[in-house]
């Protein structure tokens, strides 16, 4: 009765060795769910921690050993592209996720345990919550959720058609909505953040989906290759293409936190458990930019004369608004949130170049930014008022005398954000600016340079507070970081300095990888 189905039907192919890293991460997540189901409460957390870390490490090793030598192929019947940028971004995501997981593990800085509430379902302040706190229970679902999110990110940067693209976006985002709401301290703030993130996130997903539908309507194909081909043949439904491009861009601008789609960033970054904030700020941004680069460079690669003006406007807005609003912040997490908005603007400068050097410079910048971001948020967890983090900036006064090491390392990360030479941030800025000048976006670079100085003001202000001010009388206590946090911060600091002093190898890596396949 349905002859058209049988004709020329071939069963889909899967290149397992190319997909292996993603399959390992998803597999680890599923095993994690089983662990939740069948492991007794006592050893459950230990098992989850081990599973999470081992999964990421194994996935990273497999990525380098198995996938990387074979890159340059489309996999899973063309729905996934395992090319240089995909592998580079996947590796970056895995490393950043591993560093964030180290922060998830930490239970030394809060006297009650890790950064997560014992049970997200209990009412804040209720008797049942107190009972669980006393029993030192922890919400171990955090681990499989985070693994699912990592898997989604890895798929997001590799997806080569609109459907995979959207599914990956959701797999990445849904666990994050939950993770944001699981803070141990200030739970109402955390839940509010989760709700905001969820509502705005679904709204932006809807935009992205709607935009995808328009792109499909224009080209008659969901694959990026097909959209690219239809652009060159010029089918003549330009309004569809324009609307589709714009709406997809809105969805992605939301995810990277670009102005004017940034309003969720400060609230969510502030409310989320700080390790989750670090994870989101670093890994999610890498994934979102990876996907943005792919859809705009691959599917809409020959259409850049039409999307670049939009990027110009958004880039300038993001840099200007992010930098200026960051100056007015008094909470360090909100300040770092606005700083990440401004940083997104600098990264967009590289994206706007629409060239291979734009791609490689963006890749480098994301690595540099990821390290510094995780490091900075890790340090935020250490300065505490009684039980919760002392995030008000005035509480950080005089830290340089009380804890020279925390202050010095935080200064390093802030100087990197500000783009001072011999830190990774400077090389990143240099690369994206170079790409932008080469790509004919010199005015963007001038705006970027001027507002780098504005941005430097609020980074420097924190350094001023830490070193040049006297500590308050009731100075916050400083938690001694456990081994995990220490390791994470040390790696981030080493990465920030190494990428600033000898950036050659990573630039090489990024330049070699900077070729999308269609």
């Amino acid at each position, binding site marked *: 009765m349905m002859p058209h189905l049988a004709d020329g039907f071939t069963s889909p192919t899967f290149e397992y060795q190319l997909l292996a890293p993603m399959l390992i991460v998803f597999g680890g997540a599923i095993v994690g769910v089983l662990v939740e189901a069948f492991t007794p409460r006592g050893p459950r957390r230990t098992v989850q921690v081990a599973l999470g870390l081992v999964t990421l490490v194994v996935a990273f090793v497999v990525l380098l050993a198995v996938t990387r030598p074979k890159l340059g192929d489309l996999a899973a019947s063309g729905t996934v592209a395992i090319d240089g940028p995909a592998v580079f971004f996947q590796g970056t995501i895995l490393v950043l996720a591993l560093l964030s997981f180290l922060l998830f593990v930490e239970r030394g800085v809060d006297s009650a345990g890790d950064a997560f509430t014992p049970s997200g379902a209990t009412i804040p302040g209720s008797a049942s919550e107190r009972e669980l706190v006393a029993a030192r229970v922890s919400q171990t679902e955090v681990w499989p959720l985070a693994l699912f999110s990592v898997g989604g990110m890895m798929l997001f940067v590799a997806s080569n058609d609109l459907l995979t693209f959207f599914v990956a976006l959701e797999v990445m985002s849904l666990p994050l909505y939950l993770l944001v709401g699981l803070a141990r301290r200030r739970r109402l703030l955390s839940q509010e953040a989760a709700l905001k993130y969820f509502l705005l996130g679904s709204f932006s997903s809807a935009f992205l989906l709607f935009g995808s539908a328009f792109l499909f309507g224009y080209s008659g194909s969901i694959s990026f290759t097909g959209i690219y081909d239809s652009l060159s043949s010029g089918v003549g439904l330009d309004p569809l293409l324009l609307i589709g491009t714009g709406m997809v861009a809105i969805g992605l601008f939301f995810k990277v936190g670009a102005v004017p789609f940034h309003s969720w960033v400060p609230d969510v970054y502030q409310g989320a458990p700080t390790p989750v904030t670090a994870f989101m700020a670093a890994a999610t941004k890498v994934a979102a930019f990876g996907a943005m680069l792919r859809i705009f460079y691959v599917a809409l690669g020959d259409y850049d004369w039409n999307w670049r003006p939009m990027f110009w406007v958004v880039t300038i807005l993001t840099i200007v608004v992010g930098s200026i609003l960051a100056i007015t912040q008094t909470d360090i997490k909100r300040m770092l949130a606005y700083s990440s908005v401004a940083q997104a603007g600098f990264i967009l400068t590289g994206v706007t170049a629409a060239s291979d050097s734009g791609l490689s410079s963006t890749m480098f910048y994301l690595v540099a930014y990821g390290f510094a971001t995780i490091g900075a948020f890790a340090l935020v967890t250490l300065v505490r008022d009684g039980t919760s983090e002392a995030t008000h900036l005035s509480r950080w006064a005089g830290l340089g005398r009380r804890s020279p090491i925390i202050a010095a390392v935080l200064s390093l990360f802030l100087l990197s954000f500000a783009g*001072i030479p*011999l830190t990774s941030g400077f090389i990143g800025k240099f690369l994206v600016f170079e790409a932008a000048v*080469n790509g004919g976006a010199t005015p963007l670079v001038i705006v970027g*340079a001027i507002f780098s100085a504005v941005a*430097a003001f609020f980074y420097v202000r924190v350094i*001023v507070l830490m070193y*040049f001010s006297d500590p308050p009388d009731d100075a916050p206590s400083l938690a001694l970081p456990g081994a995990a946090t220490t390791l994470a911060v040390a790696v981030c600091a080493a990465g920030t300095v190494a990428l600033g002093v000898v950036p050659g190898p990573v630039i090489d890596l990024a330049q070699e990888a900077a070729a999308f396949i269609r």
Partner: protein
Amino acid sequence: MNDFPVLSILGLLPFAAAVVVGFLPHGRELLAKQIALVVSLVMLALTVAMAISFEPNAAEPFQFVEKTPWIEQFGISYALGVDGIALVLIAMAVSLGPVVILAGWNDADDNERHRPQTYFALLLALLGTIVFVFAATDLFLFYVAFEVMLIPVYFLIGMFGRGQRTYAAVKFLLYSLFGGLLLLAALIGLYVVSARELGTGTFDWTLLAGMPIDPDTQKILFAGFFFAFAVKAPMVPVHTWLPDAAASATPATSTLLVGVLDKVATFAMLRMVIPIFPDASEWAAPFVVTLAVISIVYGALVAIGQTDMYRLIAYTSVSHFGFIILGIFAFTEIGGSGSVVYMVAHGLSTAALFLVAGFLVKRRGSSLIPSFGGVQRVAPLLAGFFLVAGLSSLAMPGLASFVGELTVLIGSYQRWPVAAVIAVIGIVLSSLYVLIMYQRVAQGPETENVKGMRDAVPREVVVFAPILALTLAVGIFPKPVFDVVNPAIERTYSFLQVAPVEPEVPVGDVTTDGAATDGEDS
């Protein structure tokens, strides 16, 4: 000897020492100071050795060259080397090293917030970056050193300064960063242009100098470079960070900041702006010279009105930097060489003024001029130092500044007679501000304020003596400096289109601004 990486050692040694000194435990303050002093003396010895084996008339532009690829993808290398100008300035900076360390011996002792170890580590790190910034022949490396230099100064002002130290430190950093980031944008533009002109992009000075760049691009890039250096120099109207910084920093910091660090800007104008953007430099020269003259007169006038000694000295520097820039943009060899000599002289005289003022302020606990009076009666030696330092600043014949100022004026009169004539007003004013300050501080009857003030202690004499000796040496016998500097200046101006104005030309022939145009025709 030629393979010996003397410049790297000169630059990295203080960094290594800074790390050691910074991590010394409590109770080892004296050791920290001793290490800092010894390291600065070793640097001085190395510099002397370097100066002796330097050949002023060598064919190649740079000597003691080192070159290692750094970021090969962008043609960036770790390239060091010195010409005569850089050598003279490094020598000046390194000679001031032990002097400021001795002068700042007790600066951080009574600071309850921060340790002396940190103070000396930062001073050493600053000396290291200064060496790199003068020795870099790769523009990217120069930029890195140029920006990194800000960090130690920022902490030196903010941690160890006084009064509005935080405000001053942040203002200093933001002004410099603002200029620096525009410089970065221009530097990237230059790189992109070099990639178009030369095939592969580069930051190597030897390839960039004299590279053909179309005039319009040159003007834009020139603007970026010049703005950054004008902020740093500092020129009116972007000078306001300097008085604040100088008033808040310790005298040792101010000496390095005003005496040495700001010279980076004028050095870079000679090293980079003119050889790489010759057309734009000629195009902008009238504008630059106007600003320079405004700086000279404005700086001097404002200096007269100051009641704070440090601020006064800072404004005299604004005026003196005007002279230096006037000399550079005179595009005559005598003016150029004169400006280099003036850079050295200004470094020495500023050091003398800041440090002696620092001795006075330390005793009195205030830097306001009215809180002194009659110092001469209680501390004749100290007052004498102050007078000599002041005379050096107002360019007394026989002292280094006189040589610099005179040659700058001769050189610039040949090209910009009107500007030179106005600039002379600056000299007249300079005797006003110096002598008024000296009179109010040191002369007259002994006042209540200065009762029981101690005269100079041996350490202070040791600080002042070498500065005085160098000032006298350069003032009386400047030939060795000119010999070293002249070939480099000649090379610098060889990139310009304007024919050099011959020093022999009778003054009467060059009475109008047409001189420059005449030069172009020939």
